[in-house]
């Protein structure tokens, strides 16, 4: 996979390469890791691994914030730590607890199988890199990988959301979708007030909090976490 990245990176026009070199490596390698985690999440069927991967992705991203932000003051560190706390500790713990309560371990029979979804994710990533080279940018991003990583992560979130049936996997899908948006937000750290970032974080937290309660109740009522069963509630 990394080979694929390299050859695509080679084709990026020179205009985008405006970021300083040292920063480049510091930002690119975590982003590469994020991309790999995406593919891993698409291919894994064990839910514990999925939760850990999502947590790892969240932690990497919050670290990335500190690297990218030009003046790393108390507020930035505060937000980064808060992100680590929520995405890396609290949400995974809630999900693991829900997993334990529901007594499920694996996603069985997804709409699209694990290998095909992985291939789809890889194709999507490649397409995102090609696409990103053609985007007209007003400011050059700190790393050429940011936009492809963002698109690829959003795509991964969408794929998890659409092709998996278990409620917990769908929650993780939302989480990853948000991660993708967060990566895009890294481009806009100067423009978007931190209050907005905090608001998104709070939304996510509350959302997942509520969903984990719902999961508990769904499991008690239907003795299954299959969202297809939820259509029985219709009208």
């Amino acid at each position, binding site marked *: 996979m990394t080979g694929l990245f390299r050859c695509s990176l080679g084709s990026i026009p020179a205009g985008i390469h405006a970021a300083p070199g040292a920063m480049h490596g510091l930002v690119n390698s975590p982003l590469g890791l994020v991309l790999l985690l995406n593919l891993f999440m698409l291919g894994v069927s064990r839910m514990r691994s999925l939760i850990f991967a999502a947590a790892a992705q969240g932690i990497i991203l919050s670290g990335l914030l500190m690297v990218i932000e030009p003046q790393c003051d108390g507020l930035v560190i505060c937000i980064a730590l808060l992100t680590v706390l929520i995405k890396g500790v609290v949400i995974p713990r809630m999900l693991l607890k829900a997993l334990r309560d529901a007594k499920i371990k694996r996603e069985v029979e997804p*709409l699209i199988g694990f290998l095909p979804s992985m291939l789809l994710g890889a194709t999507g990533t490649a397409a995102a890199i090609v*696409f990103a080279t*053609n*985007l*007209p940018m007003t400011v050059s991003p700190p790393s050429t990988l940011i936009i492809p990583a963002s*698109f690829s992560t*959003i*795509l991964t979130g*969408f794929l998890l*959301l*659409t*092709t*998996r*049936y278990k409620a917990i996997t*769908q929650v993780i*899908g939302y989480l990853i979708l948000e991660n993708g948006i967060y990566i895009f937000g890294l481009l806009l750290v100067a423009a978007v007030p931190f209050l907005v970032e905090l608001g998104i974080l709070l939304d996510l937290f509350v959302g997942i909090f509520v969903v984990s309660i719902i999961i508990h109740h769904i499991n008690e009522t239907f003795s299954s976490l299959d*969202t*297809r069963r*939820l*259509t029985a509630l*219709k009208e």
Partner: protein
Amino acid sequence: MNITIYLLLASTACMTLSGLPGLLLSRRRMAGQWIALALNLLASAAGMAALLTFAGNGCQSDLMTWGWALPWGRFAVGVDVITGMFLLPILVVSALGAVYGLGYWKQAQHPGNGRKLRFFWGLMSAGMMLTTMARNGVLFLMAWEIMATAAFFLITTEDQREDVRAAGWIYLIVAHLGMICLIAMFVLLRWIDGTFNLWFTAKMPAASGVATAIFLLGLVGFGLKAGIMPLHVWLPGAHANAPSHVSALFSGVMLNIGIYGLVRIGGIFPAPPIWWGATLFIMGVGSAVVGMIFAFCQNDYKRLLAYSSIENMGIVIIGLALALIGKSIHRPDLILLGLGGALFHMLNHSLFKPLLFMGAGSILHAIHTRRIDQLGGLARKMPVTLLLFLIGAMAICGLPGLNGFVGEWLLYLAMLHTVSMGHMDAVVWLSFGVPALAVTGALAVASFVKVVGTVFLGNQRSSDLDQAHDPGFSSLVPMAILALGCMVAALVPTTITGMLVRAVQSWNQAMLSVRGSAKMPAPMHDMAILDAALLVAGILMVIAFWLIRRRKTVAPRPTWSCGYAKPTSKMQYSGASFSRMLAQLFNWMMPGRPFVLPQRGLFLQPTTLTHDASDTLLDKGLIPGFALLRRLFLWFRPLQNKPVNIYVAYMLAILLLLLLALRFQV
């Protein structure tokens, strides 16, 4: 120097908040209503003071902007003569309506919905004020939406009633359709100008496609609010089913806001093509004539008044159309007479229509029926209401001596003037405007003769009317003020025309430089004298009649009934029999068929004549049309009825499509 705008903003804020304290107060006590009334009066007083300072400053246009957290521009409000002209009725009718509500919609008698009504009353008044003041497209749309939504809640005040809910839904659908058009229109305006700043003069020629789209979207969006035919479908039901002072606010003020938008759109382009004016002209003439025919055939006096509002808006639109045609053929006199007449007629309508709706409300409050056929002989029970209603009815018919005449007279002058100028393009359109306006006036007289004659005169048709009586002071005083306004407005046309000329000049910037354009080309002064003479003569006649009547004693008897020995109250004209001929003539237009059993034999058989003219366009056109649409959209149901996964997949698909589109655009 910006005191006007500050005062107006304070007034708007006060108006918004007027119903709020009442929400927290007791349902059964009057305290909340008094607070709302006090705040409403305060807001109106502040607004009036603002308009006075504005006039004192020589009507200098003013604009203030503040930054706000939303994207797209700034919080920009401004005031100019046109804004002032539309603000005035809002302030007057909102305050008088609140006073009227004190007796008409007592909190103690309406514990369930009185607080809601007053909250949305304030909100809607404030929304309308902000709409006229907004100088930023986004702010305009927000204010517009506040107004439209509050209006929905006002219509559905008595939401326990089925017909009220139906009228509310129809209104809501129409309001949304209008909003969609307006959003599209403002996007196009931004496309022209590059900002959301409002009411600029466009540089682009009006013949371009974008300008055409703006005009058409504005025509539909604002026309739906103004209730011009064929965009009027929501209007009769909403006006008939809302509480009467709400109908007064709708008819007297909210329809104006639609006109406001059309006036502004007409002001954007310096030289509109002639078909813009022609389209508006046809719609205006259609609304006026057809609206009045429908009004004449109604059996529900509030619906009758509602259709009469359509007619009056039609007259206003005729004036605006004349002004647009004047712009196209570069005739400043036509612009002055047309727009001046339109604005004047609109102001007049804001005086007499609330008066009439409040009169109708007083009848409804006393009798609890809206059917003309069940009323009769109310003149003895409600003499003051009759007097005030009669003044309103005479004014709305455009009888000389009252204000309704002056506005329509300006429009007649405009049309005759243009026809005599011999501009061929315009003559074709205008030559049938004069007779149409005349027919409308005649039908208006017939309609109000029908209302006054069958409701107030004659004998009472049921014993329910025995307890009927004039309403209290809180209802009569607002009506008296409006009636007085109808007389005064007729006496000071020279003062008003000064304002009208300024408004027209600010509408058509090009006219500021034309010499001789600062005067209305009409003998306003003579008109004022004529009006005063007629008014004095009328008052003298009433006094003389009263003196003669006082000396004689007159025994009340049934109307002479063709020599029958035992006349009953049924032997008199009913509303349906009065309008029967016209109803038969226009049978093809109105599905409600006047129905009489033929008589056979020597002795008369019992028979009935009822006529409930329903709205053809709504009942025969739109409701079946929407049912058809619904069936068509059932095809999409398989797409819609899916688990969450599929919805997310739809989103993904759209996202990818958008990205692809972007890719190929770049």
